[in-house]
């Protein structure tokens, strides 16, 4: 144990409250958590009302709660706790199995759901999760209830260049996806690993997920880019599913949206405006910016003004228009009967912007 951690002053150590009516479990948890590097102070109680009184009396960073409790069940306790102490991290540690219980717990906003026998089988992982929760800044980021497709969740993790291990549960099935610095390292479900496992997991229509601590040393089995893999998987899912044509179109649109947003995020663009070179401007699309109508209109106008200038001065065909302000740089060019306006942060090197814009526009319709 590093000396610096051993010498942590009492006031800088986090408080953890464990609520369980089984005294043996309280001992097991106390023993496991006392080994954490941050050396938290551990308090225990065997019922909900007492737990609420303890939370009122002293600041706690994290509460680990069983669901089967006397007087007041764990769900009631968690519900009250989330209303009164929204910053408190909560972990459910229970022997009650079942998708409904797990979903209900997550819908209350708990940070982690662990089964007691999982904890016994993998105490190291449990400790890592708790340490990770303790280390997270309480006033950074958002917390809430997620109701998104697994594809969205993975894409969000990758777009924000996160490092995490996602544990996904659907009924009795448990899968894991490893992400490191926004890149997919590996996926595992049952005996399957790598891309086949990833595709199988993405075909699941419902379930719950947990963010576990990253495992940077985990063996890499997936080398393809996340976007290519997600697109291929989505296509495979669509082909196998018997869906109505309208639903297919909606899915294709959704895929296109996801692809374009990830392309923008990957390249670092602020927003993209795409307007047909002729015809009504309202058929234009704006991604990532408000004032869509004005931006689409201006894109068309500036292109027409540029062409007019070129005609008056006999300066040859319009190639592109580049502009800048303190807030952003932008490049406007045309491709395949469409006008594209791409905005970039001012930090982007101006010399590279034209090439980056051309690259983004070329990929836009792919």
């Amino acid at each position, binding site marked *: 144990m590093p000396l610096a951690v051993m010498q942590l002053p009492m006031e800088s150590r986090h408080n953890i409250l464990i609520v369980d009516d089984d005294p043996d479990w309280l001992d097991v948890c106390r023993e496991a958590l006392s080994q954490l590097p941050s050396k938290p102070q551990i308090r225990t109680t065997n019922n909900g009302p007492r737990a609420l009184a303890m939370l009122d009396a002293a600041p706690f960073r994290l509460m680990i709660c069983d669901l089967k409790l006397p007087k007041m069940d764990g769900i009631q306790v968690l519900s009250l706790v989330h209303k009164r102490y929204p910053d408190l991290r909560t972990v459910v540690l229970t022997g009650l199995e079942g998708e409904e219980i797990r979903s209900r717990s997550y819908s209350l906003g708990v940070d982690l759901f662990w089964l007691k026998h999982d904890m016994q089988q993998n105490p190291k992982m449990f400790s890592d999760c708790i340490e990770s929760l303790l280390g997270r800044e309480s006033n950074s980021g958002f917390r809430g209830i997620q109701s998104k497709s697994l594809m969205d969740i993975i894409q969000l993790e990758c777009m924000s260049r996160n490092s995490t291990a996602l544990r996904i549960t659907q009924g009795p099935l448990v899968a894991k996806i490893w992400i490191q610095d926004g890149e997919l390292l590996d996926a595992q479900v049952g005996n399957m690993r790598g891309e086949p496992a990833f595709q199988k997991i993405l075909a699941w229509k419902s379930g719950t997920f947990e963010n576990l601590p990253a495992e940077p040393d985990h063996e890499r089995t997936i080398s393809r880019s996340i976007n290519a893999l997600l697109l291929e998987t989505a296509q495979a899912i669509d082909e196998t599913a018997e869906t109505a044509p309208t639903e297919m179109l909606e899915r294709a649109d959704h895929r296109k949206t996801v692809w374009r947003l990830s392309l923008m995020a990957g390249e670092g663009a602020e927003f993209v405006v795409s307007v047909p070179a002729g015809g009504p401007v309202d058929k234009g699309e704006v991604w990532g910016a408000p004032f869509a109508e004005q931006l689409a209109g201006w894109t068309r*106008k500036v292109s027409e003004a540029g062409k007019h200038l*070129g005609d*008056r001065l006999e300066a*040859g*065909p319009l190639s592109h228009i*580049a502009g800048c302000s303190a807030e952003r740089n932008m490049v406007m060019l045309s491709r395949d009967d469409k006008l594209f306006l791409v905005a970039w942060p001012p930090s982007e090197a101006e010399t590279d912007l034209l090439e980056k814009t051309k690259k983004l526009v070329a990929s836009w319709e792919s």
Partner: protein
Amino acid sequence: MGILKKFFRRKRQARVQELPTGSMTVNAKGDLLTSTVSSNYSRKLLTDVSREVLGIFREAREAQLPLAEFTVHFGSLRITAREMRNGAVIFLLPATKPAPTQN
């Protein structure tokens, strides 16, 4: 001889129009204040150019995308415009000449 001259006289070669080069400053209405562009280009043409440029700045502001500077790249010419407090400064540069900015 006079008749023969009509047949054998060399046709006058088409004059090659040079691309405009230079800079100009314009006021907020687009009126030319100073210009180093060749006088072969009429004042009216340059005023038309400056009004078009000011229109781009104005409409950019209206679209919530205010610009401090922009460059229009043509096959053979670049027009760079910087917005000033009461107008703009406009540079006309053939594509082979170095631009005042890297846009």
